[in-house]
């Protein structure tokens, strides 16, 4: 198991209820050593915001990509060891020889797969956006929903009119 280099959460000091200067220094210290986790959380929140709050379909896809990038950063942070080399097989010097640590390759491999998956999802999403643009003439979610609603209303009005006409015809008979 890779060593991430210390506890993952800022240690809760005795003064946790009223954050004093010591607790503040703890948080700062955590940020200084684990800033990649902070960036991952920040990136993820930006991505989530874009996915949920943006009305533009392309921007939602960009938000999804940000979210995935945040996950890549998270995985790579797990595998990172300070001062370690790449886990490549040297013919003259096997990894781990002379006490040289090497990084955990497994998260890298997993993320290679996740990147391919992410590209596939993005490709399908963009293809759908292109088709939506052709069908609706817009990539704005609000306009699409409004257009659908108008269509549904027109359809149900037509159906009601037909039913009423049929009823009237039945009554005449």
């Amino acid at each position: 198991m890779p060593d991430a280099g210390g506890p993952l959460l800022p240690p809760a000091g005795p003064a946790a209820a009223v954050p004093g200067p010591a607790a503040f220094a703890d948080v700062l210290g955590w940020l200084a050593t684990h800033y990649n986790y902070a960036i991952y959380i920040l990136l993820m929140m930006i991505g989530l915001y874009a996915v949920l709050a943006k009305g533009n379909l392309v921007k939602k896809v960009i938000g999804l990509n940000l979210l995935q990038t945040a996950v890549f950063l998270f995985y790579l942070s797990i595998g990172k060891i300070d001062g370690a080399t790449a886990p490549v097989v040297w013919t003259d010097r096997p990894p781990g020889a002379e006490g040289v640590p090497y990084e955990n390759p497994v998260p890298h491999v997993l993320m290679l797969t996740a990147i391919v998956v992410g590209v596939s999802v993005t490709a399908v999403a963009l293809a759908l956006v292109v088709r939506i643009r052709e069908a609706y003439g817009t990539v704005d979610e609000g306009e699409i929903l409004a257009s659908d609603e108008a269509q549904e209303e027109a359809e149900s009005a037509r159906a009601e009119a037909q039913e009423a006409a049929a009823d009237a015809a039945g009554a005449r008979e």
Partner: protein
Amino acid sequence: MRSTDSLIVRYIARRSVPFIQLYALYVLGHGEDGPGGGFQGGVIFASSFVLLGLANGWGYGRRAAPARLLDPLLPLGCLIYLGIGLAALLAGGAFLEYGALAGSDDPEVRRHWHHYGLIGIEVGVMVTVSAAMATLFFEMARPARVQARVDRVGEEADRA
């Protein structure tokens, strides 16, 4: 997508294609014992067609990598992958156990066949990845007038 106006850019883009593709093959060949492999090689290979499309226009790039060539290549690469896996299975090993392809228990021979199987798989991955990336680029970047023609053909096929 129109071609660029600069003759130099167009010329250099055309002339870089063989070098990019050679580099892609180099990356592919190093996949089994170092950084590289089918994914990376495939993407680099496809980038040569993307460059052609960007510099010399959509049609020029698409003629170099036409749909009737790429479309069968998409499943073909995966079929190479699955075929090697199934061959190992038929040779008495587990699915994708390339060592079993050797048909002998000598660890040295098995190790060699393991490498051959691995390279075969990487080639399969490269075929599919490069075809997929090039297809993605050309389909997404398709100019409107080409799209209109494709739609017309599709509608005619529908009617027929």
